[in-house]
């Protein structure tokens, strides 16, 4: 089974849940920006949650199905159509051979994910299918997709087979995932943070602004990081930092005082002061934010951040179990 790209859109890449284990060699983690939508897309088609799938930015992508294929589209609402008709999101769709899937215009959220039953068949590089654009490795020949590229899919799991036969059955029950349990695509986002390493080195006025004022996502927002704009953040005294590890959601403050949140394709180390860290449970919401969206930071403890993550993981686990149940019974 395969698809052929007609128009690549702004930036369409193969991603998975990231390339771990090689950060000490300077190899970035990468992976899906919104890992929740990504994992749910794979679940809906019966794949492993970490299987390779497409990350689609905003609009412009179109491709043709070369065979009948089970797919799921999740993430931001980018108004996908199949043969000109609005395509449903967050549920399994059995697409007919020769159909064209297209992302036209209008959006809430910045990124959509398309999972294909069987997963995208590209080789693992350093144990991951994520596309690492700067090093030209992983994904499809280490680059974003282009017109004419053909993507092959792997073998179907028995869960995928069960889901397909359900969809073909005349008594099949429609179902979809209630994504609101996990994320939303509001223009004003509450984003929970914990203190960063240098939190206490910032002025009282700066910390007050960080927590009580809004920060706007600027147009300089890509897979590496989101440049924010708001009340400038200043340290009580200048001090030189030595480079050390950073992670997804680290909020760094360069001398301009305007914070940058590090995202999926961040470098492995950074030398700017770290005022705060977005909690893992809120990274998907952050990743779906668009330029001009407003972020409101809410300070929580590590224990609260962990608790939010455990609850989210429990809900994802329950969802995976219920999908498997639908496929097999």
């Amino acid at each position, binding site marked *: 089974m395969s698809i052929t790209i007609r128009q690549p859109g702004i930036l369409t890449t193969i991603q998975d849940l990231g390339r771990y284990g090689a950060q000490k060699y300077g190899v970035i983690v990468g992976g899906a920006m919104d890992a929740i939508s990504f994992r749910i897309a794979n679940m809906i088609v019966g794949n492993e949650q970490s299987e390779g799938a497409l990350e689609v930015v905003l609009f412009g992508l179109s491709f043709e199905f070369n065979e009948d294929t089970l797919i799921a589209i999740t993430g931001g609402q980018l108004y996908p159509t199949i043969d000109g008709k609005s395509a449903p999101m967050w549920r399994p769709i059995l697409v007919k051979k020769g159909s064209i899937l297209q992302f036209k215009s209008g959006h809430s959220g910045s990124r959509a994910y398309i999972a294909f039953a069987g997963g995208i068949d590209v080789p693992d590089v350093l144990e991951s299918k994520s596309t690492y654009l700067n090093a030209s490795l992983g994904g499809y020949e280490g680059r974003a997709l282009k017109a004419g590229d053909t993507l092959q899919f792997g073998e179907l799991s028995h869960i995928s087979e069960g889901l397909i036969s359900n969809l073909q059955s005349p008594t099949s029950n429609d179902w979809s995932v209630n994504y609101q349990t996990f994320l939303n695509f509001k223009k004003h986002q509450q984003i929970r943070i914990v203190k960063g390493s240098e939190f206490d080195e910032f002025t009282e006025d700066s910390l007050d602004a960080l927590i009580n004022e809004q920060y706007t996502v600027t147009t300089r927002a890509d897979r590496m990081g989101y440049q924010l704009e708001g009340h400038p953040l200043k340290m009580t005294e200048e001090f030189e930092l030595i480079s050390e*590890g950073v992670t997804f959601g680290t909020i760094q403050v360069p001398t301009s005082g305007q914070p940058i949140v590090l995202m999926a394709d961040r470098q492995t180390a950074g030398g700017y002061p770290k005022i705060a860290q977005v909690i893992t449970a809120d990274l998907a919401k952050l990743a779906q934010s668009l330029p001009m969206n407003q972020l409101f930071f809410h300070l929580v403890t590590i224990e609260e951040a962990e608790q939010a993550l455990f609850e989210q993981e429990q809900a994802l686990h329950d969802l995976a179990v219920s999908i498997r149940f639908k496929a097999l019974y």
Partner: protein
Amino acid sequence: MDIQQNIKMRSLGDSAIVVQIGEGISPDIHHVIIHLMTEIERDPFHGFIEAVPSYNSVTVYYNPVTIYFENQQSQVNSAFQKVSAFMEEYIKRVNPEEEREQRVIEIPVIYGGEYGPDLGVVATYNSLTPEEVIDIHLNHEYMVYMIGFSPGFPFLGGMDERIATPRKVSPRQAIPQGSVGIAGKQTGIYSLETPGGWQIIGRSPASLFLPNSSPPTLLQAGDKIRFKQIEEEEFSTYKEEVI
């Protein structure tokens, strides 16, 4: 150095911890960092993802969900506390007196000309001749403190301050892979073609990033390197040999 007296542990969000040892940059601190890396990787705790060394810290990435569900019966309040306790155990196992094997890797470099367009800049800035700059650069052993910035890019310590030179005012759009540069008191080697502001004094045919090998880089934190001058004719021979 009394390690126990000089440890700082802090969270990097809910899924990573930074273990800092001492302050600043020194070979002694880094020696302890590499020992700590070895201890963690030799016997990783359940939920461990990876560890990344820097000048004076190790950042350990972990899955708090795994740790939480495995330790529900214990008295520990959070995954972070549990990982902090693991880190204390690893630190206890580190013996700073213990010598470790340190590789010394030779990096062939062709200096000046089209391969090192800023050799003259570095010479002029330091009131030296280009030959003196090359001699000073060749005449030292450099410590690989960490790999970062791009895959395989070494952050080196030990450069002679007589050839220190500020970065270029406006960075170049593309610096060829293998370029050897100076930025302030640091020297380094570009592992990929990237934009950059370092003063480029030469180029090496060695490949620093080897994505299909294990490990995927020529250099690792804790190694030492020496530069070796080669002539233009040797460049392509090295290119074929050093893979």
